[in-house]
């Protein structure tokens, strides 16, 4: 059973984090202060087996059946390795405790560089932070450990960010608005919008934002979002929040979610990260996925057959890495399994292998009427 998470309201996960930290540190302290004390720390490591992953019929997310493996590190432990594991786990936990206590966000990099000699490598820190989040049953951002904000948003909505006194409307036209941590978004008002368009590429996002597509689209008012490639957890949480808002609306007024990605294996994998989640964070996917995303394209077949009246000279040959990536996606991820939820994505991946071509977004710039006309047609035609 994966823990039920609540990323929408910050309070429950916040108190869960504080409780865990307080209990763990208290137990260690008691042991340390007793003469024969053996302080220990118990962590539930994230499951590593890929084969146990499946698409949940309830959440539509990529989930994992494998529960974590309980690991206990004791001081001084049976050998040097265990003593070291205990020490680094304690160092990471105290850094988290400090950040939560002060209400600031730190990065995994900050933790590592506080003492590179003891941690040895950044991967040790990254793994422990994710394991703590998994142990407590919260998103990583609830530990106040985050990457620098990465995703960008612009559009016809209002939000209030914690620590800011006024509701911030600047992002109405400002394409440089970073997507805040989900917990920091205190209020959100999206009643004016009809659609959300997720863009893989920042360049495409800037182009559309510059043309004010979120206001001028034939499909109504909307929001433009980019995660700049593979999205970070904040961007995914933001999309999920919009999806939850949408679910509370009447069925005729539901938001429509679209994704525009490159017609290559990464584009399809990025679309699926928003829609189903990622293999690396299978335990968080059910609180971050948005099952209603429509895949606008690009599809290589549309370009090959000239449906879009775009010259197919702009197709690019697959690299060795692309072909390897497609085979890995088909063999490892249930999203593209034969009887999986994305038969269209699977067919597109196989077709890329067959034709040995991919289509990048720049193709659309030169098409008939350009990107805007293409989007208007797709977004008004699709349900």
């Amino acid at each position: 059973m994966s823990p039920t998470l609540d990323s929408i309201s910050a309070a429950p996960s916040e108190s869960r984090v504080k409780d865990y930290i307080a209990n763990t540190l208290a137990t260690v302290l008691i042991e340390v202060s007793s003469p024969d004390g053996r302080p220990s720390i118990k962590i539930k490591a994230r499951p590593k087996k890929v084969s146990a992953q499946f698409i949940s019929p309830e959440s539509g997310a990529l989930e994992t059946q494998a529960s974590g493996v309980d690991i206990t590190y004791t001081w001084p432990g049976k050998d040097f390795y265990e003593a070291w594991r205990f020490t680094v786990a304690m160092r990471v936990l105290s850094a988290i405790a400090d950040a939560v206590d002060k209400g600031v966000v730190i990065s995994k990099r900050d933790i590592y560089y506080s003492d590179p000699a003891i941690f040895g490598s950044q991967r040790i820190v990254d793994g422990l932070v994710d394991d703590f989040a998994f142990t407590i049953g919260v998103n990583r951002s609830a530990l106040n450990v985050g990457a620098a904000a990465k995703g960008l948003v612009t559009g016809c909505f209002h939000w209030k960010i914690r620590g800011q006194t006024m509701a911030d409307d600047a992002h109405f036209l400002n394409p440089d608005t970073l997507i805040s941590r989900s917990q920091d978004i205190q209020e959100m008002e999206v009643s004016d919008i009809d659609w959300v368009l997720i863009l893989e590429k920042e360049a495409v996002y800037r182009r559309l934002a510059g043309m004010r597509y979120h206001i001028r689209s034939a499909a109504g008012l909307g929001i433009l979002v980019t995660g700049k490639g593979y999205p970070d957890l904040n961007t995914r949480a933001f999309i999920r929040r919009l999806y939850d808002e949408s679910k509370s609306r009447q069925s005729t007024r539901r938001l429509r979610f679209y994704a525009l990605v490159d017609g290559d294996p990464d584009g399809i994998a990025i679309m699926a990260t928003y829609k189903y989640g990622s293999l690396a964070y299978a335990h968080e996917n059910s609180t971050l996925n948005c099952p209603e995303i429509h895949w606008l394209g690009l599809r290589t077949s549309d370009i090959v057959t000239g449906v879009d009246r775009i010259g197919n000279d702009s197709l690019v040959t697959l690299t060795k890495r692309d072909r390897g990536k497609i085979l890995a996606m088909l063999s490892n991820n249930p999203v593209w399994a034969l009887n999986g939820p994305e038969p269209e994505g699977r067919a597109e991946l196989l077709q890329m292998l067959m034709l040995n071509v991919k289509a990048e977004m720049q193709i659309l710039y030169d098409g008939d009427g350009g990107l805007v006309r293409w989007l208007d047609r797709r977004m008004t035609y699709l349900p």
Partner: protein
Amino acid sequence: MSKQYLSCGSADNAHPTDIYGLAVTDKFCFSASGSSSLKVHSTLDPEFPLIQSIDDAHKLGCHHVVTNLRGSRAASIGFAGEIAIWSCHDNVWSKDRTASVNPTGSAGIWAIALSADGQYLAGVSQDGHVKVWDLNANGEEIRDYETKGSFGTCIDLSADGRFLASGHENGSVYIFSTETGRMPFSLSGLVKPVRAVAFSPGGKFLAAAGDSKVIVLYDTSSGEQVANLSGHAAWIMSLSWSNTGEYLLSGSFDGKVKVWSIDTRACVATHSETEKSIWSVRWLPKIGRSEGFATAGASRSISFYREATGG
């Protein structure tokens, strides 16, 4: 002179995904797709019933399936690159345990062809090598021709086994003599990726086609281009010669199927029942005086056609 071919049946939704390959013998029609099983339909029965499903043949799906002229052996290659050899006993197909291909030498092979007797398997690789294996000698590699390294998309062996031809992504078409291991002459290729090459039954012509939407006919005795058959409006994905060599069949990405007369160098029939891409076209065995063919692709079904007999 136009000819008329009538739809004479179909195997609807024969596969749950696109059908990428067809192979036809005097009794059987094999189909390969993005699913893990190969399907075998009967070509003897006018209803073309499914007579065998070879399940779990290729885990990630299969893109090429070929048979030898005698109809005793078949070979298939999956998306993960694995080659399987099949043989027929009492009209049932199963893995041929006497035949194998060395997996290290066959890494990266994309398209394959079988010799008429089924003894030799030829393949072209993603890095442009053209190889031949002797299936009766533990799959020993007996030829390795190196080309300029462009992705090999298609391959064919002449019926007499004397020539091999390969088509490549950079538009090159190569022809090799299997006896000398040499190229008898270099062919002027196409300007865009080649997707299909096919020798005429008598070996007089080699046809090549692909993204340039034109079928080029080469004279195999001189290497000269002797005809350009134009009429397709999309990438040509598959070619097949009729049993007598009088007609050439072609299928394209926009769903069109055309029959060309080699005599007149003209298109004599066009079929556009589907807009979904055609991945494979194959002539059927001749029954009496009537010829027919099978087509398959993104429609996931196999369609069968027979020549309308004047009456």
